[in-house]
């Protein structure tokens, strides 16, 4: 068996081993690979920078743990960026398989541990920020499109109480947000189709600006909405998350300290993805070279 045949019939376990090592090593020893900021990501950063302090943004956690490595860092970056700019943040969750816990975990990762029912409402990371005034978590609502439609002017009908069961009217920020008119834009961190619903329904019917942070596998579809202007910004997969995290870290070094303290962040994920992409690309090229050589040989009857 010559080298080309050996390559064609390479035991897949070697490939698994390489991919496994490529996934683990960069997490333990970050490579800090560079990122090129793309236009759709820059658009989100610029929009957040352009808002006046006190304006409200809504972050919808429309994904579960399966896509957490891609979507979690997006949530962290947008919440941290908004709080650093003194914007106010309303967090909701519409994804049934774990969205509710993802939202709480990412919010607490950014602001510190919370226990509003027992009076723990001050943020550990942002000492001047308080739950209910500067940020709030409305919780999860089933029903997807119907919930989005109702939220346009009946926010309190969809979310009568926050995640912890306290009526929204008891919080300053809860009272203020009655519908989409009260938010500067909606950021959907989405897996699957929910990001499309925000564009199709909330942007198209109510004119609310929408940005989406999607998984890489959904990104090609979302580019059509971005190009059509139905989304003003798009974070496409881990790369988009890394670009945004990079922009935020450059402008706000104090936030870089926070994200660097996380066991996992977009930068580390980007290192992993880049190395794994390199391995896959290399093996695709090797596989094709071997395939072409073999085919030529067969044609020549060798």
């Amino acid at each position: 068996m010559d080298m080309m045949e050996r390559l064609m019939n390479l035991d897949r376990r070697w490939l698994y081993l390489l991919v496994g090592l490529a996934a683990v090593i960069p997490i333990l020893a970050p490579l800090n690979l560079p990122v090129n900021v793309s236009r759709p990501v820059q658009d989100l950063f610029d929009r957040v920078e352009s808002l006046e302090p006190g304006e409200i943004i809504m972050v919808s956690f429309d994904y579960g743990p399966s896509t957490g490595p891609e979507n979690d860092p997006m949530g962290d970056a947008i919440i941290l960026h908004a709080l650093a700019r003194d914007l106010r943040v309303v967090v909701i969750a519409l994804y049934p398989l774990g969205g509710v816990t993802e939202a709480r975990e990412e919010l607490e990762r950014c602001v510190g541990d919370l226990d509003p029912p027992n009076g723990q409402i001050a943020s550990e990371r942002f000492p001047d920020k308080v739950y209910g005034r500067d940020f709030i978590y409305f919780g999860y609502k089933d029903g997807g499109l119907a919930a989005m439609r109702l939220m346009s002017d009946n926010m309190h009908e969809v979310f009568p109480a926050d995640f912890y069961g306290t009526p929204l009217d008891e919080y300053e920020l809860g009272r203020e947000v009655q519908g989409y008119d009260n938010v500067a834009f909606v950021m959907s961190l989405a897996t699957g189709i929910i990001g499309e619903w925000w564009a199709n329904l909330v942007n198209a019917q109510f004119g609310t600006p929408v940005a989406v942070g999607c998984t890489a596998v959904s990104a090609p579809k979302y580019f059509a909405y971005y190009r059509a202007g139905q989304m003003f910004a798009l974070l496409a997969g881990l790369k988009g998350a890394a670009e945004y995290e990079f922009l935020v870290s450059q402008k706000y070094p104090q936030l870089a300290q926070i994200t660097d303290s996380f066991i996992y962040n977009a930068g580390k994920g980007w290192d992993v993805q880049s190395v794994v992409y390199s391995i896959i690309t290399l093996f695709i090229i090797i596989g094709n070279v071997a395939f072409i050589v073999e085919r030529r040989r067969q044609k020549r009857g060798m």
Partner: protein
Amino acid sequence: MYKKQFPLLLAFLGGAIPIISFFITTPGDRLKVTTDTLQDWMLIIAGAALLLGVVNLFQINLRKISTRAKGWPNALWLLLSLVIAATFGLADAFGTSVFGIWGGDVAFQWIQDAAFKPLQATMFSLLAFYVASAAFRAFRVRNVEAGILLAAALIIMLGVNPYAVKVLPFLPDATNWIMNIPNAAAQRGIIIGAALGAASFSLRILLGIERSYLGLQKGE
């Protein structure tokens, strides 16, 4: 009549009222109020549908277990997991303890952290290995179409790769062009086609032409 015409009438009104209210404003906004009520109902029905799903899951899997059908241990495990997760979840929702041992919130959070998240993450992570293996074995230039697909994939993959971009700095622009022009055009066509299909299917339901959701055959 009650089995056929009445549900068809309900479906027609449930679909037609929100559509009309989107285009027409009536005195006192009655149509909008009705639409809002219908949407409230939809939220409630969506929750009830979840319960229906659970009942259905029990019916199917209990039958599998009782007849010792192929894969019945999996069905048993599925139902056990469902019962445990639901018990902990309900204990969390009602603020009670589970068997007087764990607080409902602690137990549910434990299920989330120790089982649900790692299992979901593991399932999804396996894709990286399978995609790598499949790309190596199946992504071959067998014909012109496969060659075009391979070229586009390589440009996209290399265009987001920091190592490759250092050597070939034009790659990000090429990647952006592929994503923004041919990809967006093709995706737009697919999305518009799917939307037209969904609209025509909805219209068939509203007009009572499509009745399979009632369990009726064609012509019934």
